[in-house]
Every structure is written in structure tokens, then in C-alpha cells.
């Protein structure tokens, strides 16, 4: 495949998960060796065997997961590895602070050089990462899925920084799978599918629908078709729930919410605001400190995961590989993880494997899982198909409440469409759906009501016309409801 990036441009690299975007950029940055082909930088052929080579050329990369040392200050993190030292290896703190201040001023990246990274928000930490790259003399900056952890406002801030950089003559490669971002920030767009470039275009020459079609290889429905919700009785109630995280800090802080039959409640929020702990507490995987969880009028606060399953809870876990599927087991076994010891899948302690296989064959068909057959191991499937296995299993248990956490993370567009349609169908069939997602677009297109979580509490629950991207963005960033109402009117 071919890719040419020009100076002074934002070049968006668009593709689904697994299209090869990150692999390609890891080659450019020297983390992976290419099997064949050559790379030219500034017209000259170059060999990049390590990130050191790349940095030497002026290539910088900001990874999806930040590579910062939380207890150190911004300045220390920026200069780390390339310190200006005085005699005897003593770091020149003043010089490094000055350099950082100059850099941040020049590119409009407001950061306090003396702040500790652990005290900064994710958006600001990202700025530190960019500063780090610039400090090392980067003229070509690679941003790998930079907006996945940002609020809409922070995303807009990042776009401004990116435009500032290209105005200075640098080049930026912007890796993403979000169409809206591409349209608003890119000068050129390269679309990848299955390791190949399928199109090279500009925002002016294309539309989101075109790009989606190129990415997936067929026309895609960008909007989810759904009628108005007809909510019934509340099926899932969370009252004053408090939950600790793994470091024994309060992650969910007296949170209350309610999901009614026949509606989708979307839980929006920046990652790390207690979503994971809330979901685990509702699923029975994490002990609660106080409060109550009620499922279909039964209190289940202290019940085992199995009792909740039987009480009607379906759970699509956020981390598919860790909690959703057992990669080494066949699809058929994965589809009965919750039911393997009950009829018709077992008689006494003997498993009835023929029934398990038939069941799997049926679900593979009705959930359109692309697999060789029921006996194929789950690990051999693509992310999207693995997720379909999880969705199929959780829905085939006949739940009355469905808790879907990041249901389309790492899933291809085709499968996203399918999973979204399933969720809406289940809502129409009378299920109460709690959708937890850090993709705001997903929440906006699916949810009937939106609850915004901030620091373990529900900042606000929005309904109908109140559901507005800017307003949610501000709430995600910690603004109070009344402030938001004021700005909301204006926007």
C-alpha cells in the first residue's frame, strides 16, 4: 500500500479496527519492521528501525494509551530521556521549565509545567504528550485515536491545536474511525480497509456516507431507525449506591438511577468516572459499600451473578476478552456460559453436547455470526463476531434488563449496525436497556434518556429536547446543571 503525507496538512487515516492503521503507523514510528517496501522522508529514502530513529528524523507519535509518569511534573515528563543537564548530571530544572513554557506558548497548548501529571485531566495529559513529541523536534506528528478519551469540548480544543501545528508547516497524521472528526479536521483523507488503501480523498470531495461505505465496503446506515420509546414500569433501580474501585477509593458515590421497561437509558461520561465500577456492581461482580440494586422488583444488592442472571439480567461486559468470551473455548460453549448446567444443555451433571451445538448453530444463524461453525474457537473470530456471540448469549437467556457496556468497542461498522439494531429491537420488545458508552455518538443515537456520570454521581438526566451534544459535553466535564442550562439555551 501507498501513503503520501504532505507538510502543512492534517492527513486523516480512516478505517475500522483491524484495518491496519495502527500497524502502518507503528511501522512508520519504528515499532514494527515492514516485510517489504520503502519509506521516504523529506524526499530521501530512510530506514526506521526503532522509535529513536523516528524521533531523530522528526517523527513523533502520541499513542492511544499515554506514556506518562503520573507522579512527575509536566516539565519532567516532557524532557524525560532528553534532559538538559548541567555538570555532574544534575537536571537543569529552570531551563526545562522555560523550554516547556515556550513550546506551549508557541503552539497554544496551555499547560502548567509544574503541575503533576496525575492531577491533570485526560485532555490536558494529551497536550503533555503532544508537547513531549514537539520537544523532541517532531515535524510529523502521529495521533493514534486521539479523541477516544476526550469530551466533545476537549476534542474541539485538540482540533485547534492540530490546525495550529499545520499552520506552522508541520504535518499531522490523525488516525481515527470517527467520520465526523475526519470531516471537520482533515485536509486529506486516506481510507484503509483490510490492510489496503481503498481511497484517497478530501472532505470537500466526499461525504460521511461515502466514507462509511469505503471503510466497510458496502453502504452503511449511519442513523439508527427507531420509533419513540414506550416506557413501562421500572425494571432496574439503583438507589444511593456507593462502590469502591480497585484502589479502595470511592468510585461510585451515592448514585441513583432507574431504567424502565421499553426504554434505553444511555449513561454518558468520560471514561474513569465510575462507569466500570457501577456496571460491575450491578452485575454482582463487585461488592457494594452501601445502597441498593433492585432488579424486576427483587432486591439483588448482595446476590451472586448467577442469581441476577436468573432474575433477568443480561450483561454485555465492557472488556470482551477479559469477561465476555473464553477465547480458547468453541463458540458453542461460549454461547451457553450461563446455562451450560441446565436443561436442555445438561442432564444431571452430564452435558448434552448435541443440544449445545444445535443451539449454537441456531444462534450463529440468527445473529449473523461469521464463523466456520459452532466448534470454531471464539478466539479465531473477529472482534465484531466475538461481540455478536456475547450479545447472542445474553439475549438468548431471555433477560428483562439488558446492561450493555461499551457494546461496540473494537467492533467493525457492520457489526455495530447489527448490534445497535438488536438493542433497539429488544427495547421495542419491552426490555429495559442500560447503555454505558464512552462514545457519545452511540449514546446520542440510541438512548431515549441520557444520564451523565461525573465522578461517580449522576450529574443530570436529560430527556427529549434536553438531549444536546454540547450540554452533555459540559456535564461530562463537570459543569453544574444550572450553568449548563444557561449555556444550553445559548447554543
Amino acid at each position, binding site marked *: 500500500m501507498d501513503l503520501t503525507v504532505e*507538510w502543512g496538512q492534517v492527513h486523516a487515516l480512516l478505517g475500522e479496527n483491524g484495518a491496519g492503521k495502527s500497524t502502518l503507523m507503528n511501522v512508520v514510528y519504528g515499532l514494527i519492521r515492514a*516485510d517489504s517496501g520503502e*519509506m521516504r522522508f523529506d524526499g530521501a529514502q530512510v530506514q526506521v528501525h526503532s522509535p529513536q530513529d523516528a524521533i531523530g528524523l522528526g517523527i513523533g507519535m502520541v499513542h492511544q494509551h499515554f506514556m506518562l509518569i503520573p507522579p512527575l511534573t509536566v516539565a519532567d515528563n516532557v524532557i524525560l530521556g532528553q534532559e538538559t543537564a548541567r555538570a555532574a548530571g544534575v537536571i537543569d530544572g529552570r531551563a526545562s521549565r522555560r523550554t516547556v513554557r515556550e513550546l506551549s506558548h508557541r503552539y497554544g497548548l496551555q499547560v502548567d509545567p509544574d503541575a503533576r501529571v496525575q492531577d491533570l485531566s485526560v485532555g490536558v495529559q494529551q497536550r503533555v504528550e503532544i508537547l513531549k513529541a514537539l520537544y523532541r523536534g517532531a515535524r510529523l506528528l502521529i495521533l493514534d485515536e486521539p479523541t477516544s478519551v476526550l469530551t466533545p469540548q476537549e476534542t474541539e480544543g485538540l482540533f485547534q491545536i492540530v490546525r495550529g501545528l499545520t499552520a506552522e508547516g508541520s504535518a499531522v497524521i490523525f488516525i481515527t474511525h470517527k467520520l465526523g472528526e475526519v470531516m471537520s479536521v482533515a485536509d486529506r483523507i486516506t481510507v484503509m480497509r483490510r490492510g489496503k488503501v481503498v481511497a484517497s480523498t478530501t472532505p470537500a470531495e466526499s461525504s460521511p456516507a461515502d466514507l462509511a461505505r469505503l471503510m466497510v465496503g458496502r453502504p452503511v446506515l449511519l442513523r439508527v431507525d427507531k420509533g419513540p420509546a414506550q416506557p413501562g414500569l421500572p425494571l432496574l433501580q439503583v438507589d444511593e449506591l456507593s462502590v469502591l474501585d480497585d484502589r479502595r477509593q470511592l468510585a461510585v458515590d451515592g448514585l441513583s438511577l432507574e431504567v424502565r421497561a421499553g426504554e434505553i437509558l444511555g449513561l454518558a461520561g468520560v471514561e474513569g468516572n465510575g462507569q466500570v465500577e457501577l456496571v460491575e456492581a450491578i452485575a454482582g461482580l463487585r461488592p457494594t459499600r452501601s445502597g441498593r440494586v433492585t432488579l424486576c422488583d427483587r432486591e439483588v444488592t448482595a446476590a*451472586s*451473578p448467577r442469581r441476577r442472571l436468573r432474575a433477568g439480567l443480561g450483561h454485555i461486559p465492557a472488556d470482551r476478552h477479559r469477561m465476555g468470551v473464553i477465547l*480458547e*473455548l468453541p463458540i458453542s460453549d461460549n454461547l451457553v456460559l450461563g446455562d451450560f448446567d441446565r436443561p436442555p444443555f445438561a442432564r444431571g451433571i452430564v*452435558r448434552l453436547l448435541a443440544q449445545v451445538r444445535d443451539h449454537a448453530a441456531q444462534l450463529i444463524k440468527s445473529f449473523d455470526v461469521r464463523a466456520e461453525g459452532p466448534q470454531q474457537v471464539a478466539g479465531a473470530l473477529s472482534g465484531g463476531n466475538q461481540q455478536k456471540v456475547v450479545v447472542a448469549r445474553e439475549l438468548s437467556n431471555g433477560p428483562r434488563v439488558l446492561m450493555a457496556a461499551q457494546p461496540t468497542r473494537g467492533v467493525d461498522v457492520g457489526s455495530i449496525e447489527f448490534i445497535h439494531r438488536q438493542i433497539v429491537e429488544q427495547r421495542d420488545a419491552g426490555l429495559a436497556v442500560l447503555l454505558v458508552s464512552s462514545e457519545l455518538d452511540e449514546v446520542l443515537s440510541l438512548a431515549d434518556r441520557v444520564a451523565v456520570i461525573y465522578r461517580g454521581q449522576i450529574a443530570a438526566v436529560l430527556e427529549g429536547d434536553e438531549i444536546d451534544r454540547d450540554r452533555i459535553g459540559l456535564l461530562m466535564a463537570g459543569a453544574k446543571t444550572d450553568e449548563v442550562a444557561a449555556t444550553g439555551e445559548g447554543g
Partner: protein
Amino acid sequence: MPLVAILLGFVVAGVAVAITGADPIQAYLGLFQGAFTNKHAFTESLIASVPYVFLGLAVATGFRAGLFNIGADGQFYLGALGGVFVGFSIHGLPGVVHIPLAILAGIACGAVYGGLPGFLKARFGAHEVITTIMLNYIAYSLSDYLINRGPLGDPHSSAPKTPFIDPSAQLPIIFADSRLHLGLVLALLAVPLIWFLIERTTIGFRIRAVGLNPEAARSSGISVARTMVLVMAISGGLAGLAGADEVLGVSHFMPPSFSIGYGFDAIAVALLARSNPWGILPAAFLFGAMRNGAGFMQLQTQVSADMISIVQATVIMFVAAPVIVRWLLRLREVPAESLQITQPEGVGAAPKT
């Protein structure tokens, strides 16, 4: 791969023998004669393999749940204690009752003793490797006490040992003019039984699910804690069965130091079999035959019987570390994911236009 590991094991041990100045070929010849061709050698090899089958299954079952039962040796002792006690203390029962009773006592003692570290792990998070090692020492001291000074000692004997078990509790000989006992049949039955348990029952499914991905198992409602206790009890029960079987089938009494490290060899057996119940059979036979042939080899060539420990250790190392084997054999692993860049123009950033 296991065959390569065994071969490498013999090569490494052979080098060690050569370094000590002995002839490795002669040593291996002696080992082979002692294990197979001498009078009674083959049946004795089979007899020596029986405990390895039960113990190998015990360790392998633990492995399937992701648990490392190093305590098989201690559970073996407890099983032997249970078996020997029922064997000598109850009189007047017919064999068809006495034998099963003694065996069940052995299984029960081993299961409780194995279940204990399972419980400690499930309840308090105590790592089973640590607790089972410590429980081994407790088992050794316990049997030492019971047999030397305690209620299980033989009052009519000057040497510390338990009384002989009643003839009604002895496992019958199944092959005339040999010591080959019913335990071999039990071992041959245990293999398919454990295979069925693991591969075809809901209990086995729980065990495998917990072993492969405890988080996923837990989130779909499998109780990881209960499964851990259960699997350790099954593992301990099998080890206990091995102990009872040795007492009832071979020695008919129990001295204070009864095991010769069977429970540790069993780890190698399980690794060699890759925790597959069917694989336990040939692996156990290899270890039993080596154990049986080593004595004759020492007599014949003056090469220490401990030489087989070198073979075993090397086998464990190579089985547990397939990476080393691949490296040694220059077997390059095919990369799982290889990037294809087809056109020679490649990737590049062109100068500003």
C-alpha cells in the same frame, strides 16, 4: 514436542553420566534391562506406574482449573494413612466390602487435605502453591507422629511402622506369579473417568472455564470460589487414592516415610501429558519404568539411580519451556500477524509542495 523433550532429557542426563566418567550407553542399557527385559521387570514397571497415573491425573486436573497442586505428595500420605487405618483396624469384613471401604477412606482423606488449600485460596486468596507446599510438611510430620508414637503405630514391632492390613483389605493379584495388583485396573479406569469428568460434565466445564478465564466464568455466573475448592478436592482425592492403592496393593503396611517424592514426579507426569488424561498413561509408564529400572542400572554400572532425576528435571524444563526447545532446534515461530506492504513505493512523507 513431548517426545523431543524426553529425548533431550536422556541426552542431557547422558552427558552428565559421561562427565562423571561412566559410560552412558551402558547405563541406559542397564536402565532398559531393569525396566523391561529382566525377569518380572515389565510387571514391576507397571506396578511402579500405577501411583503415577493417579497422581498425574491429580496434578493435571488442578492444572485444568489453573491451579498448581504441589501438595499431591502430602495428599498421597493422607490417603495412605486413611487406607492403612481402615485396612488394619477393621476385621471380619469380606474383601468386596473391605477393599472399597479402605480405598474410599484414602480418597476422602486426600480430598479433605486437598480441599483445604482450595478453600484457603477461595476464601482468603492464599496462593495454593505456598499452602500446598506447607501442607506437605504437615502431612509428613503428621504421619511421622501417628506411626512413631501415635495410634497408628504397630505395638509389636521394633521398627516404626503401622500394623499389616488384614488380608481382606489387600488388593488381589491380577497376574499369576507377579505382584501386579488390581490397582492397575483401577488406574486404567480412572483415566477415562477423569477424561469424561473434564470433557463431558458440567463440573468439568466449570473447571475448564475457570482455568481458561476466571473473570469471564465469574461474570457468567460460575462460582470461581466453589470451583476451586471442588477441583482441589478432586485433585486431592486422586492423590489420596494413589496413597491408599500403594498401601493396599504393594506394601500392605505404612512406614513413616512412605513416598519417594511421588507427588513431585507427578508434576512432571502432568506436564509431559499436557494435562490431558489420556496422555497421563504413557507419561506415567515412562516414569514408572525409569523408577523401576534405575535400581538395576545402579547395580550393574555403578551409575547412581539419581541419574533418572536428571532426566526428569530436564524433561520438565523442556516441556514447561517450549520456547527453549524451539530455540535449541532453531524452529522459528511463524509470526501470527505479518504486515503486507506490496508496492515498493512504500510509506513516506514527501517534502512540502
